[in-house]
């Protein structure tokens, strides 16, 4: 088992390097850089001439190291991450990227993981319910709902929920805290207020995730229920409950575990789209603004960290699977 884990850990190192290179390159793709925007600003608001503004922009590029060749910039960036844990400088926030990104990435992950667990638990239960009552009214209804979950874009769902809450119930929607608590230190009241806002993104993103989990679970369990050892268990005279929960469900769980690594990106994706609409203080809106403003270190670091999270998530799913199913370890 430890062998297996070490092998998997070594295998992700090249992937991580590739991820960091690609993150860095795609962020550099747009023509111009943040200083081009600064230059435009100085011309229009500061009243500098084209040449003067260009000069200032060049000076700034020198200060922030943007005039160096790409390879050197990349190596400096990586060096900063490894030696100092510094992800570069965010031009927009005028702070180190690390100071901006961790809280927001943390909130994004908190929402995504909450959705993940809620949707796995609910999806499993509904999946079991449906598979054991195939083609019943409840099964058809849940299947229909699952299709809806797959087909409703999360940003649109967020729009509809926001409209319903604001217009229908007169509750303020959006954000993770009421205005009063945004800057307040953590307290019980702030936590309650947080929960009042927190369920909205969890519902939006969790709906789609539940749908996916439910479909996978239902399909697997139906397959397993058709297999011969289930027939054997039944003919032994075991109670139906024991047949299902002790023989069938346990064996239908493997694909679900494997699926967990694949569901996480959907959750993060949904969270990003929904949080931009709801204007949550999470990674989504920050990433979007950074992209538009070409705040490259911020956008690049966020993209890279998300991918690292996914790689770790996949690794965790694989290890969990190897732990549950010994056949995988010895392959």
């Amino acid at each position: 088992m430890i062998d297996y884990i070490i092998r998997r850990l070594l295998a992700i190192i090249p992937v991580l390097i590739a991820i960091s290179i690609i993150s860095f390159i795609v962020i550099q793709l747009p023509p111009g850089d943040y200083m081009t925007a600064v230059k435009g600003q100085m011309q229009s608001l500061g009243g500098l001439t084209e040449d003067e503004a260009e000069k200032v922009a060049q000076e700034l590029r020198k200060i922030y190291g943007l005039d160096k060749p790409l390879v050197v910039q990349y190596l400096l960036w990586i060096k900063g991450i490894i030696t100092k844990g510094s992800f570069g400088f965010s031009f927009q926030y005028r702070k180190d990227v690390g100071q901006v990104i961790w809280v927001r990435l943390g909130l994004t992950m908190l929402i995504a993981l909450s959705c993940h667990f809620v949707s796995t638990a609910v999806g499993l239960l509904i999946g079991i319910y449906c598979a054991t009552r195939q083609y019943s009214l409840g099964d058809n209804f849940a299947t229909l709902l699952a299709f809806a979950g797959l087909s409703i874009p999360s940003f649109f769902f967020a729009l509809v929920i926001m409209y319903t809450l604001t217009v229908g119930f007169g509750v303020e929607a959006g954000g993770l805290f009421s205005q009063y608590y945004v800057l307040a230190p953590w307290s019980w009241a702030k936590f309650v207020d947080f929960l009042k806002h927190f369920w909205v993104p969890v519902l939006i993103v969790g709906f789609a995730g539940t749908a996916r989990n439910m479909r996978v679970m239902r399909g697997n369990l139906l397959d397993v229920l058709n297999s011969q050892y289930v027939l054997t268990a039944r003919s032994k005279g075991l109670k139906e409950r024991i047949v299902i929960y002790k023989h069938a469900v346990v064996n239908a769980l493997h694909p679900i575990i494997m699926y967990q690594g694949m569901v996480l990106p959907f959750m993060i994706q949904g969270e990003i789209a929904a949080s931009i609409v709801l204007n949550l203080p999470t990674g989504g809106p920050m990433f979007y603004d950074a992209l538009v403003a070409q705040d490259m270190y911020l956008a690049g670091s966020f993209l890279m960290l998300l991918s690292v999270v996914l790689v770790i998530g996949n690794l965790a799913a694989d290890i969990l699977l190897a732990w549950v199913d010994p056949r995988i370890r010895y392959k």
Partner: protein
Amino acid sequence: MKLRKGPNVIEAEKGKSYLQLVWRKFKRSRTAIGGGIVIVIISILSIFAPFFSPYDYLDYQPHQSFRPPQRIHFFDHNGKFHWRLFVYNLKLEMDPETYSRIYEEDISRRFPIRLLVRGWKYNLFGISSNLHFFGVEEGGAIHLLGTDIYGRDLLGRIFLGGRVSLSIALFGAIVTVIIGSIMGAVSGYFSGLVDMVIQRAIEIIQSFPQLPLWMVLSAALPKTWSSLDVFIAMIAIFSLLNWPLLAREVRGKVLSYREQDFVMAIKEMGGSDARIIFRHLIPNCLSHIMVVLTLSIPELILMESVLSFLGLGIQPPMVSWGVLLQRAQKIETLGQHPWITLPGFFIIITVLGFNFLGDGLRDAADPYSVRRT
């Protein structure tokens, strides 16, 4: 022990062809047929958009900004029943308390809805005409889904947006499938170094969360590009990031075919590698590829709508369903004019249709199995 045989296996032994069996199984799934019908209807509405739009969807009518959807009546305000459906004109009023603009029905005159009326001139596939599917007579106006901020008819704009949303997804899916099946087949057939390189590339692309990566790439498109350039670039981005999934599956299938006798036979007869891949291996995976094609279209529709909604995708004046939803981002606008979210329901219905169709196809593509899920 004798294996259980499905009814379809028995049919196959009676000499029914693969396609016959697929069709037999497919048409038994009512949801798949329903999904197919929905897609055909929405495609027809989009392709013949000008014919189905009573008003020019590009025409600015600022004085008609944000008209709510008109109600269709059978009964007039006296409760009298009319066989022909009709609408009332909307007249602009001012709310005496809030001074906001409100539209009210002008019940002085009924405007029956007529089919095949003459209206604005358009040019469709080289035929210019002014015939429209429905409309009302001169003096009345019919905006069944309301108007947008510039007073353009939302119904027509939704049909117009459908053209872009559907075609970008269709082309994106086709290119994806072409790249994916070739990469998968090559990777599975040649193994060794080629296989390793392709597999690592797949691994790396798949280790990124899709939406953020698509956002980055779309944001990288120069602002100076025309709508058409952006349209083509988005198809390229979609297919660039989407092929790995199919490639993995095709590779798996090719690996199992590679060692089989028919491949060996072609090799012995002097068939080239290209011939084996394109004439024999890929066609053998075709049913699988078709399923992936159908199921990746809805995903691309969803992705395009998110990106365009965020302003990173299709750029005006080109219109897609996502672009139409942009105005709904502001809760102030959305709160007063909820009908501007209607394009979203077209997204949902279309995606739902494709998902149902794809699901039915997936079950039908393997007609020899007894598994029913």
